[in-house]
C-alpha cells in the first residue's frame, strides 16, 4: 500500500518529462515546438480541453495527496473519474490504473473512510477492465490484511484465485500464482498460531499428538499454494520462508533443502541475498559441514559484503586450516568495515584488532599490506579522524580503544586517532592503554623512521 506513492508520480508526468527533455536537449529554446509536437501527437487537431483539464485535475489530486489534504483530493477525484468515460479507449485503460491507485490512496488515509467504502470502491474497480481484476483483488486483500481482517482477505483471494478469462488468464499466470501464494501466507499465519498453541501443550498429553497430526496435514494443504509461485523466477522471501518452515515442521527436510537450494542457486532467479541467508540458516540448523556453510556464505559475501553474517563468516574462516581461507577472513573484516553502516560495530572492530594481532604474529604482514594498500588513502579520514576519535571516546570507550589499537597498528604511533586516545588520562583504562601502546609498538606495520 505504501509504495503506491512512488508509482503515483509516474503515470502522469512521464510523457511530459520526455517531451521537455526532447525540447531542451540542445540548450536552445523553441517556444512553438511543444505545441507543434502536441499537434503532431493529436494528428493536427488541437488538444482537447477535456484532456487538458483532466490532466490539471490529476496534478491537483497529486498535490493534495502530497499535502495530506484527503478531503480536497476526494473532491478532485469526483471530477477526475470522468476520465473513465474518455472516448479514447487507450486513455481509458491507463486511467483505470491511475484512478485505482489514487482512489485507494485517498480511501486508505481519509479520516472518514471505512472498510466498507474501500470494499465497494475495490469491487467496482475490479470490474472495469479485465486485466485489472487480479491486481486490484490482490491489493484489496492487502488492504484488508492491513486492517486485520484476515478472513475477509482470504475470502477475497479465494475468489480471485478462481478467476478465469479465456486467453487473458494465461498472460496473468504469475498474478494468479501470487494470489494463491498470498492465500497460502494467510493460511500459514493461522497454522503458526496453532503451532504456538501446540507448544503450550504438554508433549505427553493425548491431545498433543492428534493436534500435531492436524497441523502437519494443514501444512501439507497450505504448501500447495506456494508451489507454483516459487517455481517462477522472482523474489518471494516471505513465501519461501513460511513454506520452508512448514516443510521442516512436517519433517520434509529434503524438500525444504531442495526449495532453498533452487531459490538460491537457480540462475533464472534474480540475485537475492536473502535466498543465501535462508539457505545458510537452514544448513546451520541441519548442522551441515563447515565447507558447505562456507560456500554459501562466500556467495553472500560477493553480493553483500556488509551483511551481518559476515562476522560469522569471518569466524568460520578463521578456524579453517586452509591458508587462503584465513587470508579471506581478513579481507572479509576489512570489507565489512568499508561500509558506513558498520563504523560503530564494536564486534567487528574487536575481531579485526585481535585478528590483526594474530596474523601479524604469524608473520603474514603481506596480507595486511595487501588489504591496506587500497584503503590507505581513505580509511584515515573515514575512520580515524580527529572528529571520530573525539566522538567515539565520548560515546563508547571500548570502541575507541579497539579503533585506536588498529589505527596505531596500521598508521603508526603518529596517527591522530591513536594520539588522542592515548592522551585521555582515564583511570579505568590506564592498564588497557598501556597494553595498547605495547602491542602497537610490536605490531605496527609502519616502520618507525629510524
Amino acid at each position: 500500500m505504501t509504495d503506491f506513492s512512488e508509482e503515483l508520480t509516474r503515470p502522469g508526468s512521464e510523457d511530459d518529462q520526455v517531451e521537455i527533455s526532447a525540447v531542451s536537449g540542445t540548450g536552445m529554446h523553441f517556444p512553438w515546438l511543444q505545441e507543434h509536437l502536441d499537434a503532431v501527437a493529436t494528428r493536427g487537431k488541437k488538444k482537447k480541453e477535456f484532456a487538458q483539464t483532466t490532466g490539471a485535475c490529476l496534478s491537483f489530486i497529486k498535490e493534495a495527496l502530497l499535502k495530506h489534504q484527503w478531503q480536497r483530493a476526494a473532491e478532485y477525484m469526483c471530477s477526475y473519474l470522468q476520465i473513465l468515460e474518455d472516448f479514447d479507449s487507450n486513455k481509458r485503460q491507463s486511467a483505470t490504473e491511475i484512478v485505482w491507485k489514487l482512489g485507494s490512496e485517498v480511501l486508505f488515509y481519509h479520516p472518514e473512510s471505512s472498510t466498507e467504502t474501500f470494499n465497494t470502491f475495490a469491487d467496482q474497480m475490479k470490474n472495469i477492465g479485465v486485466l485489472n481484476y487480479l491486481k486490484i483483488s490482490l491489493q484489496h486483500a492487502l488492504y484488508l490484511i492491513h486492517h486485520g481482517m484476515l478472513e475477509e482477505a482470504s475470502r477475497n483471494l479465494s475468489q480471485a484465485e478462481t478467476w478465469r478469462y479465456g486467453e487473458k488468464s494465461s498472460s496473468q499466470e504469475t498474478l494468479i500464482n501470487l494470489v494463491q501464494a498470498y492465500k497460502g501466507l494467510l493460511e500459514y499465519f493461522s497454522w503458526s498460531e496453532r503451532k504456538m498453541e501446540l507448544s503450550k501443550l504438554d508433549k505427553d498429553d493425548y491431545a498433543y499428538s492428534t493436534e500435531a497430526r492436524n497441523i502437519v496435514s494443514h501444512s501439507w494443504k497450505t504448501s500447495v499454494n506456494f508451489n507454483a509461485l516459487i517455481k517462477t523466477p522472482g523474489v518471494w522471501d516471505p513465501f519461501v520462508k513460511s513454506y520452508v518452515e512448514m516443510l521442516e515442521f512436517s519433517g520434509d527436510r529434503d524438500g525444504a533443502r531442495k526449495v532453498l537450494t533452487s531459490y538460491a542457486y537457480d540462475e533464472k532467479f534474480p540475485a537475492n541475498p536473502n535466498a543465501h541467508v535462508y539457505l545458510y540458516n537452514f544448513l546451520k540448523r541441519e548442522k551441515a559441514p563447515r565447507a558447505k556453510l562456507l560456500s554459501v556464505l562466500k556467495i553472500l559475501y560477493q553480493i553483500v559484503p556488509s551483511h551481518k553474517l559476515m562476522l560469522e563468516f569471518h569466524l568460520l574462516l578463521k578456524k579453517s586450516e586452509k591458508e587462503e581461507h584465513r587470508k579471506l577472513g581478513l579481507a572479509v573484516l576489512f570489507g565489512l568495515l568499508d561500509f558506513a553502516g558498520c563504523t560503530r560495530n564494536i564486534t567487528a572492530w574487536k575481531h579485526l584488532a585481535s585478528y590483526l594481532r594474530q596474523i601479524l604474529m604469524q608473520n603474514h604482514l603481506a596480507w595486511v599490506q595487501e588489504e591496506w594498500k587500497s584503503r590507505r588513502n581513505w580509511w584515515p579520514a573515514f575512520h580515524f579522524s580527529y572528529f571520530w576519535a573525539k566522538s567515539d571516546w565520548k560515546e563508547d570507550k571500548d570502541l575507541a580503544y579497539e579503533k585506536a589499537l588498529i589505527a596505531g597498528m596500521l598508521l603508526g604511533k603518529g596517527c591522530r586517532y591513536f594520539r588522542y586516545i592515548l592522551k585521555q588520562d582515564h583511570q579505568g583504562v590506564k592498564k588497557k592503554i598501556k597494553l595498547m601502546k605495547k602491542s602497537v609498538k610490536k605490531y605496527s606495520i609502519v616502520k618507525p623512521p629510524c
Partner: protein
Amino acid sequence: MELEEAKELKERCSQCDAISWGLTEEGKYYCTSCHNVTERSKEVINTDIIPNTKIKYISRGLKRKSKFEKGWDWYVCEGFQHILCQQAEALKTLGVAPEVKNEVLHNFWKRYLQKSKQAYCANPVYTSRRKAQVLEDRVHHSDWTNGPELLSDANCTSCLESGAESQSDVPAPKPFPAPKAPQSEAASVCSGSVDGIEYSEWKEKGVVKMTVPGTLALCYLSLLWQRETVTLSDLLRFVEEDHIPYIKAFQSFPEEMKLYGRDKGIFAIESWPDYEEIYKHTIEIATFLDLPRFPDITEDCFLHPNVLCVKYLMEANLPDEMHGLTHQVTKMTGMGDVDSLTFDPIAKAARTVKYDVQAAALIVVVLKLLFLLDDKAEWSLSDLAEVHNEKNKTDKPWFNFRTWYQVMKKSVDEKKLKWEEARAKYMWKSKKPLYFSHIDKSVAYKRREMVVNLQKQFSALANSTPTVEKKSPSSFQFRWAKDDPARPCFHGHSLQGVLLKKGPALVTKNSLYWLSTQKFCRSYCKHVTTYEESNFSLSYQFILNLFSFLLRIKAALLHDEVSLIEKKLFKKKYSEAKKNSRSRKVKR
C-alpha cells in the same frame, strides 16, 4: 395515470368490443379486457406534443420507430435548432432583449437553413442527394417542400418558441423536409439522427456547415445585430461558466431524440469555445448568410470604444481620469468612427471589430503613454506618487502604479487559481452517455452508472460545502470597493502625478514611447506580429496578461491589437520606417 391516458381512445376493441384501453410500455394501446395489443401508438394520437397539423403530418413520419432505438427520426439541423433555442433562452434569462431570440436569431437561422438548402427551398439538399428516394416520395413531399413561401406560414410553432408560446405570431422553421434514411446502411455506421452519417460526410463548396461552435457564432451575430451589451468575450465566459448551454447542450434534447454513432462527432464537444475560432466563424457565417450592413455602432452604443473602455477601466481598477485619454486616442486613431466599427458582411473584406480586445488594447496604449512601461519609468513615477500621497493625506491621492500593481497581482493570481481549479473540476460528460454503435450502448450506460456511483462515493468524502458554487452571471469579474482594504479601489485616484500643465493643455510627464512592433507580418498566416513574451518589459507582460485573463484570450491577440492601434496612432513613424527600409533595399 395510465388509465387517464388511455381514455383518449374511444374506439371499440376489434376483438371484444370493449372500450377500455391501457398503454403498453412501448406506448401502444392494448385492450385491458382481452389484452389485444393494437398497432396504434400513443404518440400519433396525442396532439399535445405536436402543436399543429402540418407538423403532425411530418411527425408521423419522424416518429416512426427505428430498428435499433426507440425514438424519433430526427435531423441534425433539428439538433442545432434545439441547441440554438436553449442558448437563446439562456441569453434571455441573462437579460438580453427577447427580440434577439424571436426575431433576429430566428431569422438568421431560417436564412441559414435556406442558404444551405436544408429547408425553405424548392429542392432541399437531402432530397436532391437521394434522387431515387425523392421520386418515390414526391407525391407527399410536394405539398410542403415548395420553398420560401413557407416563411410566411404563421401557423407553425417550433422548438425556437417551445419555451415561449406567447410569441406564436413569429414564423418558425420547419423540421427537415427530407425522406427517411435507408435503414440498411445503419448497420455498421450508424447515427441516432436520420442524416447523421450524410451530414458528417457532407462537403459542398460554398456551404458553411453548422457546428456547435457555429451556434455560438450565430448567437453572437444576433447580439451584435441588436447591439446588446454583451461582448464576444463575455458570451464565451458565460459559456465557460455554464450560464449558456454549449458543451453538453445535447443533454436536454427530448428523450426521444436518440444520439449515438456519428451524431457523437457532430454534437459532442470537448473544448471550450475559443475566441478567435468563434470570431472567424462569425464572419464566415455572416458572409455566407449574405447579411446586410449591421446597425450602426454609434457613440452611445455599448460596443463603442468609449463605453467599453469605461467598463474595462473599472474592471481593471484603473483611475476614471484615464478615460479622457482613451477617448482622445480613439479619436486620433479614428477608431470611434461609425464606419470602422459597424460590421458589414457584404463589404469586400468582411471584418468585424473585436470590440472588447480593441478597448482593452486602447487602455494598454494609454498606460504605455502615461507610464512608458519599460520597468523603470513606472516605478520612479510611483515613487513620486508615494511621496506626494504621504505628504498630502487629505487630497485626492495620486495614482500609484506600484500599489495598484500589488493589489492587482494578488487579486488576479487568486482569481486565476480559482479559475484553474474550477476548470479542473469541470464535468464534461453528459448524463446521457454517447456511444459509437448499439454494441457499445450497454457498455456505455454501465460505465456511466459506475462513474456516477464512484462520484457519489468520493463526493461523500469531499468537503461537505462545495467550494465552487455556481457564480451568478455578471459582466464584471472583479469588485473593487473604497472601504475594503483587501480590494481597494483606485477609480477615484488622480493622474496629476503623471501629467504636466503646459499652457492650457495637459501633457504627460513621460515623453517617451516604444512601439510594440516595428514591422508587421505580410504573409498569409493571418498573424499581425509575433509576441515573444521574454522580449518585453515585465510591466507590459503583466498588463497584457491581466487583460487577456479578463477577456479569456491569448496575450498574443491583445498584443496584435495594441500594435495595430499604435500603427494608426504613429502613422508617420511607421511610414518613415517603411520608407527607410525600402530605400535601404534599393541601395542594396
